[in-house]
């Protein structure tokens, strides 16, 4: 019966599904923090912070994720930098840095979309630069940035499958494990539906969020 192998090995697939959710959520949170900080450097930082931000974004955005993960797996290993041997943690670090570069660009575009008059008005009312950013610029920027950040998050969920190559026991890895042990490609259909369910849920949530945050037009 179709679906039988998937059901018999459901515990493996569920374990992978949960790992994928944890990996994606964790990496998205870190990527958002990276994005806010680096985008601020890029826009308001001096020459050095701004160039460093450009370097970070252009490097991580323009090299293959798979090679970045291989690189981190080796470099962070106990006998090299000695930071971690755990493929999950390596994947979390790698995906956060990769996705952070895209988040930076999305947030920067949001900041730049704000009318300079807003900043001038806030400054002339006596707000400090930090207070201007925190109270005037970022709250408005977040609204414009929700759709592009949604794309970044969706890409992150899909990209997290690359982590299977370094041995992270996420959804694709577990699907391949079951597929190899049962000589059936059926579990991979379950894997596909698993990723789809996550990205679809994300779209629905973001759609609602967008409507709530929208400017009155």
């Amino acid at each position, binding site marked *: 019966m179709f679906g039988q192998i998937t059901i018999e090995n459901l515990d493996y697939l569920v374990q992978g599904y949960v790992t994928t959710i944890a990996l994606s959520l964790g990496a998205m949170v870190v990527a958002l923090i990276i994005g806010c900080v680096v985008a601020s450097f890029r826009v308001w930082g001096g020459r050095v912070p701004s160039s460093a931000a450009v370097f970070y974004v252009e490097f991580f955005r323009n090299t293959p994720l798979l090679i970045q993960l291989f690189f981190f797996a*080796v470099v962070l290993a106990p*006998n090299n930098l000695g930071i971690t041997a755990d493929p999950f943690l390596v994947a979390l670090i790698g995906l956060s840095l990769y996705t952070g570069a895209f988040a930076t660009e999305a947030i920067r575009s949001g900041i730049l979309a704000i009318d300079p008059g807003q900043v001038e008005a806030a400054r002339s009312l006596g707000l400090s630069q930090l207070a201007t950013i925190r109270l005037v610029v970022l709250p408005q920027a977040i609204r414009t940035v929700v759709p592009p950040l949604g794309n970044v998050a969706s890409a992150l969920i899909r990209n997290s499958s690359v982590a299977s190559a370094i041995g992270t026991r996420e959804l694709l890895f577990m699907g391949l494990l079951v597929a*190899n042990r049962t000589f059936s490609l059926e579990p991979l259909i379950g894997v596909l539906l698993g990723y789809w369910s996550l990205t679809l849920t994300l779209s629905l949530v973001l759609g609602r969020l967008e409507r709530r945050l929208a400017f009155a037009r």
Partner: protein
Amino acid sequence: MRRLVALLMASGLLLAACSSGGGGTPAAGSLAPAGSPAASPAGSAPAGSPAAAASLPTEGPTLDAIRSAGKLVCGVKFDVIAFGFRNPTSGDVEGFDADLCREIAGALGVEPEFVEAISANRIPFLQEDRVDIIASTMTRNEERLGQIDFSKIYYLAGQKILVKSDSPHQTVDDLVAAGVKVCSGQGSTSETNLLDKGVAEANLVLFATYSEAAQALLDGRCDAVSTDDSILFGLAQQNEGLEVRGEAFTQEPLGIGIKKGKEDLVAFIDAVLDQMAANGRWAELYDTHIKPYTGEEAPEPPLDM
């Protein structure tokens, strides 16, 4: 720095593997030019040779199809020394498995063409007709016999462990008792054997190729690599400071994989293997490829075990 270089090379190999797996196989086709010395054993038994023709079956739909294609597409490993290894300088595929393909192709009077088949790809490659045969250190077992056919057993391997020379672990049971991480190959029998031996699922770290697993062992991402001794000997040879330990805790009879429904090809390959055992060619291949690593004399060919 050496590790970094090794890593970049590994990524390069991976990319090469992807491109050769992506349908067209022009790169693989150029690996074994007819004139290369490695291919010469195949040339010694052309179809016209009376001795060869006498005992081999000649008719069959699959044999005819291979002859009219003019080539035998053979899935082998590219990273396992002594069995299937793509020499980075010459580009030739070397090893016991590779030479078996050359013998079979030679007996059919066609050229061998090599395609990289990692553990997880072997059965799908056969079922999708991307290769004619798989000679890729593949264990013949009951589960797989439900999916594909196998030739007679051409080599008897056994699973052992590979550790760093300064490791305290002597046997697989030590690894289980210590609860340490063990690296192995995705979609291999070694992986399930380790589970049967009591290694916790969470302590299994799996990679697509054994060269990645060896890299992980060197980096300290796992404490041992475990798979067939035939593969481990090569890894120990390639990487200083690694050694194979313990008694074999499984028997892994290696066979050549063939898609179901090609009985004529199975019979032909079995006949070639019988011939190689009888005329000493099997022992020659053993001496060339395997003896340098094990130091042991050639055993009786295990064909009918």
